[in-house]
Every structure is written in structure tokens, then in C-alpha cells.
């Protein structure tokens, strides 16, 4: 969106790019091909695959808030965690039906984002980072203190999840859970894609790039950001709800600073502001951390620290951004 097109040829290229953004190309099939291939080739690793998909959804929600809206947050786990507790409590006290449980999780995430967002999104930059961190810590402390509701350190357990649509029970191998999560991802990805290309999506991108100018143009900046944050919260809540339903356990770590930092790292490694960055970053992160943690968690931490410093330094738009640049470079050379 930056820069002005000078010649008519360039301008038409910008316009064409704007229209073609909505269209699906062959490359758009790639992630879904991976989903199917994983199921066929790694049937023993379906729980890990489900975890990857859940984290993609969570990272996608952060991409909307941070990558498109410029909301810098160190507290996104609060929205994920509240979704998880929402789904867990819904299953425990209301109904074990999974899809309405996800709706409850989305509602929990969205409401939390709406309430806190209305308070804290007036601020920007460092203060906003501190406030998101403080709010998330507050929520985590509340959950650890309110033992009668959340189970405290022991976690929330003892709930059942009814078969999906009354037909597919959640099996031990995790086949149902895998396709359930993949379906949720597909729906949420389409919604996100539509959202970021809608007038609303263009508005928040404008706010990200220049909030003062957008305010001058008559955009209600804070209100738009709160709306975006609530949508992001709903999606993060669904991710949390999926975890709660699939693992049948909600621990305090779903609200922790560790998760907030990890999701940020996933997005940055993948590349913010392009939706598919969430796919790449979450997949790389979850799979590697699963393998590395089995060997030695501190070695993983060392590698992660190193990768983080190098990615920010040498590939600030993430792996996907670096790949895009490499492809563009190769195409230009050929032309």
C-alpha cells in the first residue's frame, strides 16, 4: 500500500494486484495438500498435527491484530486462554456438544478483547505493550487464584466432549480431532482472508501505517482497532477452545507469558501481515519444538534465541517474506 504509482502502467499493476488478491491461485492449495498428506503419511503423529493446526489458528489471530492492525501485544495468550477456559467450563457445566462449545470459546475471547481493548487500545507503542502484558498477567493470576472455578494449578479437567455432529466420536488416535481442527482452520482462514481485503481490512492497514493520517481522514481509529482486536480475540478463543476440547485439559500455561511470547515468535518467523506467514511460522515452530524438547528443552531455547535474533536482523518480514523476495529477484533476473 506504500508509495504512489506514477505511470499509468504501474497504476494499473497496483489496481490489478488489488483485485487479484481476492483470487485463489494454485499455491493456495499447498497448505491443504500438506494437511491431507500429513494425515496419509504420518497417521501416528495426528495429535502433533492437530497441535500445529491449533497454533496456526492462534497465530492467524495475532496476524490480524499485529500484522494488519499494528497492535503490538505481549498478552495474546490471555485471549487464547480465556477461550480454552470458556470451552472447558461450557463442556463441564452446560453441554458437551463441541461446536457450540467453540462458539462459547469465541465469545469468551471476543468479550475479553472487547472489554480490555476498549480500555487499552487508546494507548500505543510501549505503553500498549506493557498494558497487554499487565492485563494478561492479571488474568493468569485470577485463574490461578480462583481455584473453585478453574482448578488452579491442577488444571480444569473431568469434562467430556460429545461426538462431532452426533456422528464422529473423538477417538484415541485423534483422527476426528485432526479433521475438526482442520475444518475450523479452513473456515477461519477464509473469514480472515475476506476480512483483510474488505474495506474494514484496508482501513486497519491504513491505521497500522499511519494512524494520524487516518484520523485526519475521519476514521474512528480506536473504535476500528477495538473491533479488529475483538475479531482477533474470537479467533484466538477458538484456538484455545480447540485445545481444551481436544486435550480435555486446561492448564494455567494457556494464559502464560511463555505462550504470548511463543505466538509472537511464530508470527515473526513466518512473516507478519500476509496470513500464510502464520501457517509457515506455526508449523516450523511447533514441529521443531516438539522434536527438540524431546532431546533437551534448554538446547531448544538456545537455538530459538539465536534464530530469533538472526530472523529479526536478516529477515524482518519472516521466512515467507524472504522467500517472496528471493522469488521476485529470480523472476526479475529472468525477465
Amino acid at each position, binding site marked *: 500500500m506504500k508509495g504512489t504509482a506514477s505511470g499509468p502502467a504501474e497504476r494499473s499493476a497496483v489496481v490489478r494486484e488489488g483485485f487479484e488478491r481476492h483470487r485463489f491461485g494454485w499455491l493456495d492449495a499447498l497448505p491443504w495438500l500438506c494437511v491431507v498428506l500429513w494425515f496419509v503419511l504420518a497417521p501416528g503423529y495426528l495429535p502433533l498435527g492437530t497441535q500445529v493446526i491449533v497454533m496456526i489458528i492462534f497465530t492467524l489471530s495475532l496476524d490480524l491484530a499485529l500484522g494488519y492492525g499494528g497492535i503490538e501485544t505481549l498478552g495474546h495468550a490471555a485471549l487464547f486462554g480465556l477461550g480454552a477456559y470458556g470451552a472447558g467450563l461450557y463442556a463441564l457445566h452446560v453441554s458437551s456438544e463441541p461446536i457450540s462449545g467453540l462458539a462459547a470459546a469465541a465469545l469468551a475471547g471476543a468479550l475479553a478483547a472487547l472489554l480490555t481493548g476498549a480500555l487499552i487500545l487508546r494507548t500505543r507503542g510501549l505503553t500498549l505493550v*506493557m498494558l497487554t502484558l499487565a492485563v494478561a498477567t492479571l488474568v493468569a493470576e485470577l485463574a490461578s487464584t480462583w481455584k473453585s472455578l478453574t482448578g488452579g494449578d491442577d488444571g480444569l479437567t473431568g469434562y467430556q466432549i460429545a461426538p462431532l455432529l452426533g456422528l464422529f466420536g473423538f477417538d484415541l488416535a485423534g483422527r476426528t480431532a485432526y479433521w475438526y481442527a482442520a475444518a475450523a482452520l479452513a473456515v477461519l482462514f477464509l473469514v480472515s482472508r475476506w476480512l483483510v481485503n474488505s474495506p474494514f481490512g484496508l482501513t486497519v492497514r491504513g491505521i497500522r501505517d499511519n494512524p494520524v493520517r487516518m484520523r485526519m481522514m475521519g476514521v474512528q481509529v480506536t473504535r476500528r482497532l477495538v473491533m479488529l482486536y475483538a475479531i482477533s480475540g474470537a479467533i484466538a478463543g477458538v484456538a484455545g477452545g480447540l485445545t481444551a476440547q481436544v486435550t480435555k485439559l486446561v492448564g494455567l500455561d494457556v494464559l502464560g507469558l511463555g505462550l504470548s511470547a511463543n505466538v509472537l515468535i511464530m508470527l515473526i518467523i513466518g512473516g507478519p501481515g500476509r496470513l500464510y506467514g502464520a501457517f509457515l511460522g506455526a508449523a516450523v515452530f511447533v514441529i521443531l519444538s516438539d522434536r527438540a524438547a524431546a532431546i533437551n528443552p534448554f538446547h531448544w531455547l538456545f537455538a530459538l534465541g539465536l534464530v530469533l535474533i538472526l530472523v529479526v536482523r536478516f529477515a524482518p518480514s519472516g521466512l515467507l517474506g524472504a522467500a517472496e523476495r528471493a522469488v521476485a529477484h529470480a523472476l526479475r533476473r529472468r525477465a
Partner: protein
Amino acid sequence: MRYLGTAATLLVDGIAFSMVLFLISIGMTVTLGIMRVVNLAHCAFAMAGGYLALALVQHASLGLMAALPIAVIGTMILGAVLEKTVYRWVYATSELGQILMTIGLTFLMIAAANLLFGSTLQTLPVPKPLAGTWEAGDVILSTYRGFLVLVAGAIAATLWAVMEYTDVGARLRAAVDNPRIARAVGINVPRVFAATFALGCGLAAIGGVLGTQMLPLEPWYALKYLVLVLMVVAVGGLGSIQGSFYAALLLGLIDTFGRYLVPALGAFLIYLAVVALLLWRPQGLFGRS
């Protein structure tokens, strides 16, 4: 009288805890104030100081007081070296990039601490003359914590005098207030900053070494207490040492008294206070908007 005794004990404990937080937070608030650098790795320097002292106590069989200056100087050197190398990259990136890079650096230091010292909780031994308690009627005070309050008080007073009355302090204040104008009148801002960065690491190391009774050493130290220190900095106002002092006192006392008076709420109270304070004054108690 019994209540008075409890209140006095809590007061000294709370102030001692506050002073440890204050010592660790000075470096961070100055970094944020001058360079607008979000240095999330700052707590790792307090941890580095603590572990250095631990190594000296365990392997060179030095006393705590003998190990302290060596650990502090060691941490300052570590800080200065990192400032000249990795932090060059940190300065050059965006705010979000700084957060991520310094988290990365924290991860590296956590992994290093685990490799060298293992993952168990460790505390440094209290020197003999400072062990035990000091009693007057019902008032029972830990000698070590009283000592901690005195030391930190002395450091705070010295810092204040240096900031207020010396040329160095004036340069630093000018650099915090307006780096561009400070540069224009001939102050070498990067050098002031490098010196302050090292000094901040040293002060954090003092907090790390002396505070192990309250904040025991472990590899996760660097992340575990980060939130607390960040909150002191944010509530005090970015770049304000005085603000950090009062914020540390306020939060330390709220936490200590809160945990004693309403144990059911645990650490909840302090975060509630922080959110309320930041919403009331987003620029912090002593920060300028």
C-alpha cells in the same frame, strides 16, 4: 504491640523487596528513556551477577561481600561487550524487533545459565555478621533485610546526588530529555548511553546478588521477574529513576502487605494496581506525556 511488631517486620521486608526491584529496574528505565530501546534482557543481567557471585562463593570460597564487587564488575563488562555487539542490531530495528531480539538474547542467557549452573533454585549464603535477627520488644527484624534497605538507600542517595549535582548527571538528564538537542550541544549521547548501560547492568547485578533471599537464582530468573521489573519501570515512568524508586516502593509494599493481609488474592492485587495506575496515567507516575 503484637500488630506493631508484625507491621514493622512487613514494612522492612516490603522495603527490602522494593529496593531489590529498584536496583534491577534502574538500568531498564534509563535504556527506555534515552534510546527508547525495550531491553527485555535486562533481568538476565541481574541473573548473571547473581550466578557470577555464586560461582565465586562456591569455587573460590569467597564471602558474599568479597564476591559482590567482582560479580558487579564482571556483569558490567558483559553488559558493555553486548552493548557494543548484539545491541548495535537491537538499536537498528523497530520497537517490535527490539522486543523479539532481546527476548532471543534472554533465551540464550537462560540456556547458558542452565548449562553452567543447572536448573535448581539456589540462594547465596548470608554473611555471618548479618545473619540472625534484631529484636526490640515485639519487633523482630531480619538483620540482613535491614542491611539491604540501608545499602539500597545509600545507592539511591548517591545516584540522586550524582544525577542532580554532577556534570555526568546533567549530561545524562539532557540525553534522556531530548537526545537530539543534547547531541546538538555537543554531548556524546552514544557514549553517555554506553556508560549508563554498563552502569545499569552493574546495579542490576547488585540487586541480583543481594536479593537472592527474595528472588532465588534459577535459569528462568530472567523471565520470571521480568514482568515485575517492567511494571516498576512502566508505573514509574520511562526514563525516570526517581519514578522507579517510588514505583518499586509502592509495588513492593502492596505486594508484601497484600500477600500477608489477603493471602487468598496472592499476586493478583499487585497486577490490578498496575493496570489501574497505567490506565490512570499511561505515561507513568513521573513520566512526561
